[in-house]
Every structure is written in C-alpha cells, then in structure tokens.
C-alpha cells in the first residue's frame, strides 16, 4: 500500500448494508482494491458458503486508488463502525500509514465522525471463482424470497427447492410441521424463470437466511441452481456492482 486511496459515498448506509451482508457469514477477509474498483471473495469457516463482491469505481461518488492493494479486515470490527451510519450520512474510506497501516472511516452528517481500525495481514489463499452452468435461473423480488424462506424456516432446518416447468416450490419438513411455498412462473414478483431441466436440491435454511439479508441492498435477487449442486444468489448493486453468494447443497443418501 503506497499510493493514495480514497473512496467517497454520499449514502453511508449502503456500505453498511454490504458490510452486514458479508459479516453474516465471514469473520475476516481481504478486500482487493485496484484503480477500477474493489473485489472481495471469501468462504465461511465451514466452507459451505462463499461471498463474492464486486464494486466498480462507479459505485462511489469519488474513487481514487493509485495502485493495487489488499486490505484485510475483521468484519465484526468493521460492522460495529459502519452500523453507526445514520440517514443522510456520507462515508469516506481512506488508508493511513500510521501504526503500521490503518483504515480510516469518516462518517459525515450533522457531526463528522472519524473511526480507524487496523488493516490485518491475513493469509490469502487464492480463491477461485465458482463458474457453474446451472439448469435453473430465476429472478424474483428479494422480499418474496425472503418471506418464502421465513415461511419454510417455521417447519424445518433444511429447505428443498424444486424447479418444475412453471412452478418453483420451496418446501421444508420438520418432525411435526411442514411448509410448502409455490411461486408461479407468471406470478407477481417473478421476473424471469428459466428451467432447462427440472431440478431439486436441498439447502440449510440458516445459511440461506443469512444470505437473504442482502435483500435490503437490491429489490431483485437472481437465484440459480441444479439438482444436488450449489445455489447461487446474485444481487445487483449500483454502478454495475454485484454481490453473489454460493451455498453448498445438503445431499442425503
């Protein structure tokens, strides 16, 4: 980290929501900053879920990054700071060389608040992007999926997602209860529904519930999966940015 770095956002809360969406799954990780923007990719400690964030420089009102650098952060610490952002607050991120390198976060509203936190040197294994051709791709209202997962969570710990030609079914079963939610291809809130092959797969509801927290960032979520394959959730962000999650399936014998 040698050159100047400064990124400004007029709405601090969107950055706070991104940090929350990552911290739901990840404890620590490296942001990769470049003159074009930033990226972040990490798996949760159990390697069941992956978060993949891409923010182009257009996401920020002002963005100056003179050279590539890696910024390791503890998300619990970062989240405590960014969650202090209120309505109308602007945010500035800067790096500072003091004390061996710190991230300076400025929240500007009625008061100007400056927080710093240490930049961590984290072992960074090169984490490849998961590129999978899925048989099912659907875009729907984020809140529709959020409510469906809440309904399913009443009955069991796992949800079975079944994509038929015209219907997406979300089912869960517990010892005493069961839940079934059906979303029709032409139904309200379903914007795209493509099924090249009928598919059925099971996922942990607690992990999906953590991922769907990102619904606050985007009105629409794109869901992709295939039978006994990971599920992919993508949320579009301003400036053609994207927040993507992958979740491993639960496969029963």
């Amino acid at each position, binding site marked *: 980290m040698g050159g100047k770095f400064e990124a400004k956002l007029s709405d601090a809360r969107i950055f706070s929501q991104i940090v929350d969406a990552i911290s739901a799954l990840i404890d620590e990780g490296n942001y990769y900053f470049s003159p074009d923007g930033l990226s972040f990719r990490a798996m949760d400690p159990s390697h069941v879920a992956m978060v993949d964030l891409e923010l182009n420089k257009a996401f920020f009102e002002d963005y100056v990054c003179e050279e590539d650098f890696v910024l390791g952060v503890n998300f619990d610490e970062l989240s405590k700071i960014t969650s202090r952002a209120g309505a109308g607050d602007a945010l500035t991120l800067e790096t500072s060389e003091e004390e061996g390198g710190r991230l300076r976060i400025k929240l500007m509203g009625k008061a100007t608040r400056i927080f710093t936190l240490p930049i961590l040197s984290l072992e960074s294994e090169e984490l490849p992007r*998961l590129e999978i051709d899925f048989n099912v791709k659907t875009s729907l209202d984020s809140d529709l999926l959020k409510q469906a997962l809440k309904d399913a969570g009443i009955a069991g710990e796992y949800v079975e997602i079944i994509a038929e030609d015209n219907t997406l079914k979300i089912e869960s079963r517990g010892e005493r209860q069961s839940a079934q939610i059906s979303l029709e291809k032409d139904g309200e809130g379903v914007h795209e529904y493509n099924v090249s092959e009928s598919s059925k797969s099971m996922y942990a509801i607690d992990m999906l519930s953590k991922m769907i927290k990102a619904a606050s960032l985007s009105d629409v979520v794109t869901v992709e999966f295939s039978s006994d394959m990971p599920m992919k959730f993508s949320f579009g962000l301003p400036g053609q940015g994207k927040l993507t999650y992958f979740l491993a*399936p639960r496969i*029963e014998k």
Partner: protein
Amino acid sequence: MEKVAELKKLAQEILKCTKCKLSLTRKNAVPGDGSLNADIILVGEAPGVQEDRQGLPFVGEAGKLLTSLLSSIGLSRTDVYITNIVKCRPPKNREPTKEEITTCLHYLRKQTSLIKPSIICTLGRIASETLIDKKLSISKEHGKLKKMGKITYLPLYHPAAALYNPKLKDTLFADIKTLEKLSKNAKITLNNFNHYKKSKI
C-alpha cells in the same frame, strides 16, 4: 481470529507444552494432521515412536493400516483430521495415565470446537473411554454409533491392535464401513465442487 489461524496457534501451544512430565521425554509433540475443515476427526490414544520422531500422527505401521482403512471407503488422510487424546509419546509406549489424559484433553476439546466435526471416530479403548463413556467396552461396542449432542461417535479398535490380530483387522475393515455410510451423509462443502472452478482472481 480466523479458525485456521486459531488452530495453528493452538498447534504451536501444543508443541511448546510443558504441562506434564511427558514433555520431558518426548522428541516432538504431535498436535494433529489433516483437513482443518474436516467433518470427521479420528482420535487415537497417543503418539508412538515414529510419530514422536516425525511430529505427525499415525505415521508408523498402525498409520499405514489407518490409511488403508480410510482408502477402503474412498477417503484420504486429507479428507479427515487425525489426532490423539494425548499429544506426547508416553515412554516405552505405555498407556497414558489418567492425570496425563486430564491435563492434555483440553487441547482436543479446543481442536474439536474449532473444527466442528459432525463425526468423531475413536480409535481404541483409551480414546473411546475418554470421549464416549468411561465404562465402554470396546470389544462389545466397536462399530456401534453413539450420538452425543451434535456429534456422532464411532468407536473402533485401534489399528495397532489389529496389526497382530488378523481377526481384529477384518473387524476394523467391516466397522469402517459404518463411517462410509455416515460420511456420505456428512456435510458437503463448496470444495466438493472444485472441478467447476474455471477462472481465478
């Protein structure tokens, strides 16, 4: 702190441990080896002469048998985490004393709480009595699953016992099939989809 970093820190602590007199006679403490994200932990009794020399668990003759056992159900040593109840070799391969077990056990508890396996396979009487039930009879209970909290335990004969007893060896290969059935129901991670990786950052 990240899990991997915590486990590495714990291993360093074990390597420097002087909490019992086994530290006076060991060449190397043996924290454990394998995947830090494993869903299965195999727990033996204590390091032997080869393990003490190399600082790795189950690398002697019993280790070779353990590798064959895992291989017979499609698992490799890197798919699981292998460790012992006691991390240092007792002199002349004697059994660890109750005091040594009590002193050392918190290391295994910490390893388990960080790795979060759903299956623990106890190898031999000492590991089975310590982790499952102090009254457990390995000759009666081997190969039978015990669910305790979130973890399923599978007591097996110790591979070293089977080295000199072909009948026990057959029993071990039969019992490990239970682990095969369990592991197929075990946690699937994104690492299982490595072959779909095409691009890199």
